[in-house]
């Protein structure tokens, strides 16, 4: 197991958000964490990534490097796209020449052009910024990648492309990914495993494997899967307010 959460509990200002959570992530698997807004998905991811220290429980990490893709791009406005993509490498002490090469290669993978690399974030479109954020995460050759609703603000076409890219990269490079989303279609498309959180019951209400291979499922299959899930009790809370499918 690359990453194991043991009996995690957390509260903000005395209000419990997460309680007695146990989760384990194996190498190479993509785990989608779904749940209604405010149920603690971001908090759980930040605990797993070490950005928030949990009040209770332990996080066991058996890997060298991780990377995060946030909901917003979080690029440094004063660095060019190239230097932003290479930022994680710079933190890891990779020599300048080498990290520029890696940044260029990672940028190409997510569909950024060579002359976008010299631009500042303000000169890039929203979609291009999020591509750069994904490239920055994958550039450090992570063992674990945390993604917090990374594609919720990008258009449908780009979202599809980034989902496929992520699934392929995970299969090729063998990193494990914790993918937070509130979109069941997205989870059905790219996850190996699904973890459903509840806000009311403050914990995991369902845990299941998704049939098929991430990134290789066709549209019809994904659609039927989501339709089937949306009739189940486990997803009721998630789809309340968001509107059940049909």
């Amino acid at each position, binding site marked *: 197991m690359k990453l194991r959460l043991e009996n995690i509990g957390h509260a903000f200002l005395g209000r419990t958000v997460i309680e007695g959570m146990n989760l384990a992530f194996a190498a190479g698997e993509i785990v989608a964490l779904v749940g209604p807004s405010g149920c603690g998905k971001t908090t759980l991811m930040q605990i797993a990534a070490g950005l928030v220290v949990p009040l209770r429980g332990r996080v066991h990490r058996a890997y060298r490097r991780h*990377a995060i893709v946030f909901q917003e791009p979080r690029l*440094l*406005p004063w660095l060019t796209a190239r230097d932003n993509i290479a930022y994680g490498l710079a933190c890891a002490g990779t020599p300048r020449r080498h990290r520029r090469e890696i940044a260029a290669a990672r940028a190409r993978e997510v569909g950024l052009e060579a002359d976008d690399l010299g631009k500042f974030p303000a000169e890039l479109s929203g979609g291009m910024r999020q591509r750069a954020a994904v490239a920055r995460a994958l550039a450090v050759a992570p063992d674990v990648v945390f993604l917090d609703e990374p594609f919720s603000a990008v258009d449908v076409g780009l979202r599809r492309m980034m989902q496929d890219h992520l699934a392929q990269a995970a299969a090729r490079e063998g990193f494990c990914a914790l993918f937070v989303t509130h979109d069941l279609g997205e989870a059905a498309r790219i996850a190996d495993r699904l973890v459903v959180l509840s806000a009311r019951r403050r914990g995991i209400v369902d845990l299941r494997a998704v049939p098929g291979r991430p990134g290789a499922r066709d549209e019809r299959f994904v659609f039927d899967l989501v339709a089937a899930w949306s009739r189940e009790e486990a997803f009721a809370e998630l789809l309340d307010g968001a509107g059940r499918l049909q």
Partner: protein
Amino acid sequence: MPASMRSEARAAAWLGRYLWSAWAGATGLLCLAAAWQAAHELYGDFVLPDPLTTLMTLADLATEPGLGAAVKETGLRALTGFLLAAGIGTAAGTIAGYSFAALRLMKPVVTFILGVPPISWIVLALIWFGASGGSAVATVIVAALPISFAGALEGVATRDRGLDAMARAFGAGPLRRFRDVTLPHLLSYLFAAWTTAIGTAWKVAVMAELLGNSGGIGGALAKARALFDIPQVMALTVLVVLCALGSDHLVLQPLREAAERWRTAGQPWGVKR
């Protein structure tokens, strides 16, 4: 080489912007000169000499050896005071921005210093340091320090915590995070504060010199006042303004432009400043 062409284009754009802002500034100044001329024609020579006479008086003064020395003397005092105030104020403000305890400790002190009228500081400094350059420098420090402090504090306090978390997630230590995340953001606050502080430094230095009769432009101003030489008073006033504007526009602003190229990068042409 697209990369080098890009940097040349940036340099040309920078020069264009610099000249354009100088031109726009000159327009405003000429409007002011027109109003000045009108007031002169209304109230006469004795109350308000006209701009041209003032400039000619200034040109006359410039040929005298005493003026250069006076400007140098005042400039040195203003600059020494500014550098010390900017250094101490920026460092203290940065620490206060990071540490809540330091903020609680330092904020009342700075608020108190801000509340004391500069004239009291001048009198106190004259008592403590005598009618020397020291009193001018000391007054400049107390006048300019709170400005730098407040700028640095505000800059650090408003840093983007999300970017900080991002850098932490990629394993950046505290020093690297300060350099990469906080400092570039802080700089825009610092340059704004330093611009105010350098102007204050010149004005307060002249004031302290005048009251302490300790040479420099302030000393020359005291002499002109004693002789009721109004054109010379005006000329010296214009000189101080020019010095203050010069140290801002010729030293601070180009540094700011260089440090903040990323800020202008995303703006379309024509709405720059």
